[in-house]
């Protein structure tokens, strides 16, 4: 299927998940009749009923906390958090309960919950609608954390996340929701790239660009421009932030000997910091330059009329590429 938007691909993936397992339920604010503020759950309540696609009271901790109970009863809840900045009322339930129950119960209680979070900026929104909290969740043992960047991944990764017996924090690139890409809905799920694998999305030999979620497109755009200037950049979509597929990433960096990490979240203490540290450990003798990071500043996400300066764009990525190549 050519040209399917990410939001639509997620919708199709959720539909598949609901069809394939009667224990799958969707819950969140406005996910029913409205179909979600981004329409990701559009039409699902109509087709599966309000027992399976639930409009919840407006309370994020309540959504995740009751999902824990449903999971203990044998259900597989998919929670929608409406915006990144609204996940924090549920942070306690996610960190202290969702993440730890399997460990605390010595494996007797499984918590197969997916928490979907539209993340990132670039949509001209008001505050608390443009944040990138992925590092906060990646820092928590017991959670798995992934981010999709295109329609095909959105379709498969959401289904794989629902099938996972572990809780998955599922980040969706909000500003790319309406961008279209190839999607083959008939490809067997079992043959898809594993959920926690990274993927080389553009091969190259001069430098590895690591990105995930909305920044994959930015990285690919940068690689195209760099190619015009004679530099072949390899772009790796990290896809899974916990666990991280070190093999694919280290193979790429050993091959190119240089690496730039791109993320929207602030650079300080971010996912890029972990990537840089591990790459340094694993690829020390292959590196010709320190791993560089491009990302948000150590400030709150700014008012939207300044956000283009906060968000890494093609020029800032290429600036880092130039610095790495010149090293």
């Amino acid at each position, binding site marked *: 299927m050519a040209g399917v938007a990410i939001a639509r691909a997620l919708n199709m993936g959720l539909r598949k998940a609901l069809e394939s397992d009667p224990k799958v339920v969707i819950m969140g604010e406005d996910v029913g009749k409205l179909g979600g503020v981004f329409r990701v759950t559009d039409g699902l309540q109509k087709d599966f009923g309000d027992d399976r696609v639930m409009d919840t009271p407006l*309370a994020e*901790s*309540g959504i*995740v906390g009751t999902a824990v109970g449903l999971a*203990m*009863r044998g259900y597989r809840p998919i929670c929608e958090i409406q915006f990144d900045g609204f996940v924090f009322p549920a942070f306690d*339930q996610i960190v202290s309960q969702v993440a730890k129950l399997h460990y*605390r119960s010595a494996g007797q209680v499984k918590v197969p919950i997916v928490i979907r979070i539209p993340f990132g900026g670039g949509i001209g929104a008001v505050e608390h609608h443009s944040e990138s909290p992925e590092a906060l969740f990646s820092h928590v043992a017991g959670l798995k954390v992934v981010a999709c960047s295109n329609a095909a991944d959105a379709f498969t990764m959401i289904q794989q996340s629902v099938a996972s017996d572990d809780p998955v924090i599922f980040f969706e690139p909000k500003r790319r929701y309406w961008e279209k890409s190839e999607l083959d809905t008939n490809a067997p799920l079992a043959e898809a790239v594993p959920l926690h694998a990274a993927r080389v999305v553009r091969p190259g030999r001069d430098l590895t660009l690591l990105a995930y979620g909305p920044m994959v497109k930015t990285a690919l755009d940068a690689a195209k421009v760099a190619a015009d200037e004679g530099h072949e950049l390899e772009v790796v979509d990290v896809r899974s932030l916990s666990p991280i597929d070190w093999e694919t990433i280290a193979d790429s960096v050993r091959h190119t000997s240089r690496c730039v990490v791109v993320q929207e979240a602030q650079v300080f203490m971010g996912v890029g910091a972990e990537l840089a540290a591990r790459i340094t450990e694993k690829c020390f003798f292959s590196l010709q330059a320190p791993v560089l990071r491009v990302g948000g500043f150590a400030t709150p996400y700014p008012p939207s009329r300044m956000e283009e300066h906060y968000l890494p764009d093609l020029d800032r990525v290429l600036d880092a590429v130039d610095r790495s190549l010149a090293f």
Partner: protein
Amino acid sequence: MVAVPIEIAAGSDFIQLLTPEGERLENAEYPLDISAEEVRGLYRDLALVRRFDVEATALQRQGELGIWAQLLGQEAAQIGSGRALLPGDMVFPTYREHGVAWCRGIAPEKLLELFRGVNFGGWDPNQHNFALYTIVIGAQTLHATGYAMGMQRDGSEDAVIVYFGDGATSEGDVNEAFIFAASYNTPVVFFLQNNQWAISVPEERQSRIPLYQRAHGFGFPGVRVDGNDVLACLAVTRKALQHAREGQGPFLIEAFTYRMGAHTTSDDPTRYRLASELETWKLRDPIERVKAYLSRNGLADSSFYESVDAEGAELAARVREACLSMPEPKPLDIFDQVYAGGSPLVDEERAVYENYLAGYDHAEGGR
């Protein structure tokens, strides 16, 4: 700042079936038909969980447990509600529900494992329909509500009961649980043990109104029961569970009781409450009144009490022995069961640490 005084429970909104003097009262709304044999059974439960609690406290004082959360004074609230449960009902406890655990058939020594630090709860929640202890205050009220939502979808005729305290009523999660339970009309009984103290903070800092009245604002029934009266707790919880089972939705029970011990063995109540308060509550002791009832009606003789005492001594000895002989966890157990589906990161760290430990053994052996 002066705390707003609260009218202490009394009068028609305070359900009591057995007075502190052991006098049996009738209540038309909460009738209880109970045999002498059953009352003796409740006495045995109360006495044995208290004996267990005393032993666990002693084990902590002797350094065998890191900490212990005493149940002392709350036996009737827990045994009364615990004995109202049917096998299919699901329980979500705090960290002090040793009496309810007893009713669910969990061996008391299993409760010590968390407090000794060998694991985070040694029982299978599904086997006993008794979830793990929850230490984050109030978090389990949402789990209970969600579990009850699952029961609704399963067409189950069982119900959920969730325990929490007076302090927890200030938590957002508890209020969200009330809202979700009311909104979806879930079969869940909220069993609030108001033991008057959230560590050092008295009930009046949590609420300007009697806590059971909160339920009305959320749109479901709430009642206050004498939490030191095992018969009243039994009758009221049975009725609340029945209400839930019949599809009438959530129910709040405020069991008005008193934490006669410290919050935990790390606490020192002399810093914040008067000794006279404890003396007042000793007169309302949950076990003494059952004994008084049995004795004044000629339903038990001294040989009965002696046999319960002997059973208590045996239980205490067994629990002590089990505690002292608990296997020590091994260092690499840290890495077990972080994820259901495993994790390459955890595997790698386990291997690295195993290798590190092996190198240490080797170095020592070489000296």
